[in-house]
């Protein structure tokens, strides 16, 4: 009796542990089957074209601009967010006085606790005007002749969305990078100090190169977060569709895959346009899956080096 009780317990928990796998499988299946109509109609041009017209008379749905919008805003997030996060991680792991270490890391991690919709609200009514007045207007005035900075500074555009994403990935990237730096064995630091290196030299020449792959993994995880982020981006990116959504300038409204779905799917009236949103969801799912699996593999492999201290 008892042995079978153990057996049952093992099997039951094993089955329940597959919940996440089942959810992912259901997601993949339902999105794939929901995308069939749009893929049949548009074929390959669903991925390569830029036209978008939900009017039933001249229906056309092509999703390339939203993929581009996602990639461009996420790239801005990484370009701004990763160096900042790395700076925070280095400071907290290697340079800061011990007394402030814990309070500061709590503060930075609180950034992750703020709900996405509140980032959006703040972005829409507050941050947008800072970006417009102090970043976009000067950029446009002095560098407006470059297409990347052309357009009318308005604050609801690619740049604002990218900057909000940069803020939102900081807690993820900085806390994982900090763990990575802490995982660097102390003898490496001691050796470097003993030959007379300064703190910064120890970090830049030894510690960073030792933790390189883990920091890369942290950045990829940040990328995954930026790609999937929905509400905050939806509220500040301007929500343009079709050719207008191609992110040719930072000072131009655009659309990410997630924001396209969030802003419009409730208005989808006919089956084909609904299928188009599902198709975009499918693209987003594949992108998110690929990024996350790469990041998980990199970060887990790294923590395995620690000899089972974390995992």
């Amino acid at each position, binding site marked *: 009796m008892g042995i079978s009780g153990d057996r049952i317990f093992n099997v039951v928990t094993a089955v329940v542990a597959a*919940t996440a796998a089942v959810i992912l499988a259901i997601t993949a299946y339902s999105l794939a089957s929901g995308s069939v109509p749009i893929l049949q109609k548009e074929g390959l041009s669903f991925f390569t074209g830029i036209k978008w017209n939900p009017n039933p008379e001249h229906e056309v749905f092509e999703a390339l601009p939203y993929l581009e919008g996602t990639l461009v805003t996420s790239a801005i997030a990484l370009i701004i967010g990763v160096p900042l996060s790395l700076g*925070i991680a280095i400071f907290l792991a290697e340079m800061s006085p011990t007394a402030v270490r814990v309070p500061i890391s709590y503060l930075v991690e*609180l950034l992750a606790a703020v709900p*996405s919709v509140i980032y959006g609200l703040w972005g829409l009514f507050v*941050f947008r005007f800072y970006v417009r007045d102090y970043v976009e207007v000067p950029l446009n005035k002095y560098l407006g002749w470059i297409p990347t900075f052309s357009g009318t500074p308005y604050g609801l555009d690619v740049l604002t969305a990218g900057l909000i994403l940069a803020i939102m990935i900081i807690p993820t990237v900085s806390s994982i990078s900090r763990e990575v730096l802490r995982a660097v064995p102390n003898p490496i630091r001691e050796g470097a100090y003993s030959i007379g290196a300064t703190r910064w030299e120890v970090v830049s020449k030894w510690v960073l190169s030792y933790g390189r792959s883990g920091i890369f993994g942290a950045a990829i995880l940040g990328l995954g977060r930026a790609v999937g982020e929905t509400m905050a981006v939806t509220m500040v990116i301007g929500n343009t569709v079709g050719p207008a959504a191609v992110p040719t300038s930072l000072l131009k409204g655009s659309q990410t895959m997630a924001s396209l779905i969030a802003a419009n799917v409730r208005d989808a009236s006919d089956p084909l346009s609904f299928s188009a949103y599902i198709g975009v969801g499918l693209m987003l799912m594949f992108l998110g899956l690929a990024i996350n699996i790469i990041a998980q593999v990199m970060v887990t492999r790294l923590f395995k080096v620690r000899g089972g201290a974390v995992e």
Partner: protein
Amino acid sequence: MSSYAIRRFKDRLFFFLGIACIVLAVLPLGSILLEVIVKGLPTLSLKFLMSVPGPGGKNIGGIGPAIQGSLILIGLTCLIGIPLGVLSGIYLAEYGDAPYARVMRTLNDVLTEFPSIVVGLTVFLVVVLKVSGSLGLGFSPLSGAIALSFILIPIVARTAEEAIKLVPNALREASMALGVRKWRTTISIVLSVAKAGLVTGILLAVARVAGETAPLLLTVLGNTHFFEGFNEPIAALPLQIYQDALAPDPGIQARAWGAALVLILVVLSLNIVVRLATRGRMGSSVRK
């Protein structure tokens, strides 16, 4: 000697650059909190918390249905998600070395970082729509709770796993030496020792879920009335914020800030309480 001065200068420089990075990261947090308090506080009153939303202008009404809806959604989400999450966590901690468990753990981590709008879309297709092959629950509290539990489960599973792994093996061995079976040991000894860690993980997951908006867009739809039954759309705090923020009426926008203040107070206090409560313990046992 002068090269040493340059090296020292560089060292100082990067020290201050580090401080600058932290300031740059904490500034938005400060600005968000400040704006939410300054813009949200004037609308806040007992009436605001308990009445239905008004049409706008002078009569903005309140966020009663949204608060009630969020509480119902979170309650249902916990009912669905906590048992599944904790059982997954038990498996990953107690039987976690098998290849099967490793795959499940990775998939669980992947789901943790999954785009939440995709979760909403899936639940819409599989649970909400009334077509063959789906549950056909319509826009309803249960549909919303299923979507939210897809987000809650992987977080609870992960934190439960960590909490259970922290239970010293000696306790398991002592229990088994008394002839207690493994499943009995796990449920009565291991879980009760890991209780604080489990609760911590659940509270953090609830804080996360309470602010989720994207999965609700397609599953509960929002409502201006109080709970109308399990087959009807329901309001939710994050959804109310999103819809009110996009309204052209300044009064309704003010309602969004009021709702944001309530939401952020709940979410941040959950986070801060959890962190203060677990300060010593987690720091010493997990990280070293």
